[in-house]
């Protein structure tokens, strides 16, 4: 294989690529812009910033000590931004998407909840109105609400005025109630003990009644993010830049494949084929130029992410470069596949756009693959983008060593070999 035609093909393709300002912008600027946006979403709060709060409304129609306690608990919760509008206003805000949910505490809730807490009284409803497109936030509201309701009800029942009143009201009723004597005796003993407990609490000194706690969570959670190291925070930009770079280098290479079809239409392949240059050299030249452009896109994107967003290669630098090169070669051979299988530039453009979007979506370039159902996670192992994105994740924020790059590199080169073989066998070499 002569190097003069090969290097000339690479140089020519690079000149053509950089002469097209639109291609350059789409290939370099757009992925950086989109990755920055996605990175800001998926990075989560950093150490100095507050987490995004869920907007919730509470409509307290009860105004009992228990309901007031629930509202106070929700307002103090760092997860929520609580407002207390009228019910109609809250419903309208949820419908319009301004609120994730609205909680209505109906009249009589406090008394009914107290009765249900100790006895077999009917459990009062707590109405939650929610935006169906934000079911995850609704689940959070319901879960955390449970904690605040339990705290408020138990606090009142074990020392609040509402609890005392309920015990004092219930004891005489039990005396005259129709129930077996042993059960009646046990219930009276229990409530009498509760009453004695109330009476032992000093009205002034010691633990003030107002600060007495009800039932609280009997544990605390220590969270530890498994990143590259104990002092290294997860950087969502690493994933978003890897994903977007892979997406746009695939688009760039698909475009090179389409350009090859246009070159055929314009008779340029007649010139190429009439020259004493082998088919292998022609395809290799295209593959090398595509790989060089792909590698530039990938490295420029990550260079930006490193300089601006502090993304670091926490794993193996050699592994990162290996995956970058393997991804570039895979994308480049994908371009050859487009040129080989495409009938015309117009049809190829539509089909390849769909193919690239499917590959990047299934490959976890937009959102990490771990959120997929289990069967889909297995299926996407057949998508080269999955290996590229997971490999880049492993070498950046996960901090995996060189060993972690071996499988992605091998699989990506395997895809490249398969794409090349199909392209070479299906390429239309005759120029009638």
């Amino acid at each position, binding site marked *: 294989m002569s190097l003069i035609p090969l290097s000339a093909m690479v140089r020519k393709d690079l000149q*053509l690529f950089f002469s097209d300002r639109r291609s350059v912008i789409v290939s370099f600027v757009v992925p950086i812009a989109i990755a920055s946006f996605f990175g800001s979403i998926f990075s989560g709060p950093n150490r100095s910033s507050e987490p995004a709060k869920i907007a919730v409304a509470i409509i307290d129609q009860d105004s009992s000590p228990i309901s007031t306690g629930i509202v106070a608990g929700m307002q103090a919760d760092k997860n929520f931004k609580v407002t207390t509008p009228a019910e109609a206003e809250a419903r309208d805000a949820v419908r319009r998407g301004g609120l994730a949910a609205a909680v209505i505490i109906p009249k009589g809730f406090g008394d009914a909840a107290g009765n249900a807490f100790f006895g077999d009284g009917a459990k009062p409803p707590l109405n939650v109105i929610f935006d169906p497109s934000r079911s995850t936030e609704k689940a959070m509201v319901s879960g955390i609400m449970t904690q605040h309701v339990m705290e408020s009800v138990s606090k009142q029942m074990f020392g609040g005025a509402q609890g005392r009143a309920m015990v004092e009201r219930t004891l005489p009723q039990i005396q005259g109630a129709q129930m077996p004597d042993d059960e009646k005796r046990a219930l009276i003993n229990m409530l009498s003990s509760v009453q004695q407990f109330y009476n032992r609490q000093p009205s002034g000194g010691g633990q003030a009644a107002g600060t007495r706690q009800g039932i609280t969570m009997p544990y605390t959670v220590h969270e530890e993010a498994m990143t590259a190291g104990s002092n290294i925070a997860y950087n969502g930009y690493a994933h978003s830049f890897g994903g977007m770079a892979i997406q746009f280098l695939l688009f760039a290479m698909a475009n090179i494949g389409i350009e090859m079809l246009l070159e055929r239409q314009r008779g340029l392949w*007649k010139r190429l084929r009439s020259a004493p*240059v*082998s088919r292998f050299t022609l395809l290799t030249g295209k593959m090398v130029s595509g790989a060089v452009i792909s590698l530039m896109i990938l490295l420029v994107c990550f260079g930006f992410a490193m300089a601006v967003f502090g993304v670091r290669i926490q794993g193996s630098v050699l592994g990162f470069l290996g995956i970058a090169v393997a991804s570039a070669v895979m994308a480049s051979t994908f371009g050859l596949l487009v040129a080989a299988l495409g009938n015309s530039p117009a049809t190829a453009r539509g089909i390849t756009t769909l193919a690239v979007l499917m590959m990047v979506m299934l490959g976890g370039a937009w959102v990490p693959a771990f959120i997929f159902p289990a069967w889909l996670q297995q299926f996407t192992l057949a998508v080269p983008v999955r290996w590229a994105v997971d490999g880049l994740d492993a070498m950046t924020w996960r901090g995996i060593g060189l060993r972690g790059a071996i499988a992605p590199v091998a699989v990506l080169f395997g895809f490249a070999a398969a794409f090349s073989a199909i392209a070479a066998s299906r390429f239309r070499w*005759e120029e*009638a």
Partner: protein
Amino acid sequence: MLHVNHLRKTFGKLVAVDDVSFTVDRGQLVGLLGPNGAGKTTTVSMIAALVTPEKGEVLVGGARLAGDTDPKKRKIGLVPQDLALYDELSARANLRFFGALYGLSGAALDKAIGATMDLVGLADRLTDLVKTYSGGMKRRLNLAAGLLHDPDILLLDEPTVGVDPQSRNAIFENLELLKSRGKALLYTTHYMEEVERLADRIVVVDHGRVIADDTLAGLQSRVAVAGERATLESVFLTLTGRSLRD
């Protein structure tokens, strides 16, 4: 210099070229004429090794042309019907690329670029982007790209389509100069007056077969009417008929 022997090519059931044979000697321009779909471009494509013939052979300087990397391909220059140029690149970048495909590089390539651009009268536009060229200038640059590696045989597939009379005349002068330098030229066209002016011999093909191979005078004598010399167009219509072929 160029011997085409019994070439045959089919596309499915269509017989595009069937037993086509002719020769082109040094310093000779052979006009290849035929209606649309007659098999001219397929014949040129087989000579340029763009299409593999099912039967027959192409001899260049007496040796059979075989394989993609056959060095004898350097003796052939192709000027395709399409403007096979990269519009976004300069003329120099185009020619550097096409020259490199034939193994030219460095000073030899620069010298070849200078000589061909002088020949086609575009030396002063060497660094301009091709997209800024007029149609006629692109045609001349298309010719230059085929001449760059100094081939002995030049295949010209309708090289004057869509050019103004001035550019066409300039191309004719280039071809006459090349002929005088001993190049063998095969020229396909639909313009009869071009062949009348340039061709030493004329090969007429129709339905994939050679139906005439003669000098202009020889062809004219075949259809002479009342002692008057027939035009090439009337000869052509007599040989190929008047039915539409599109």
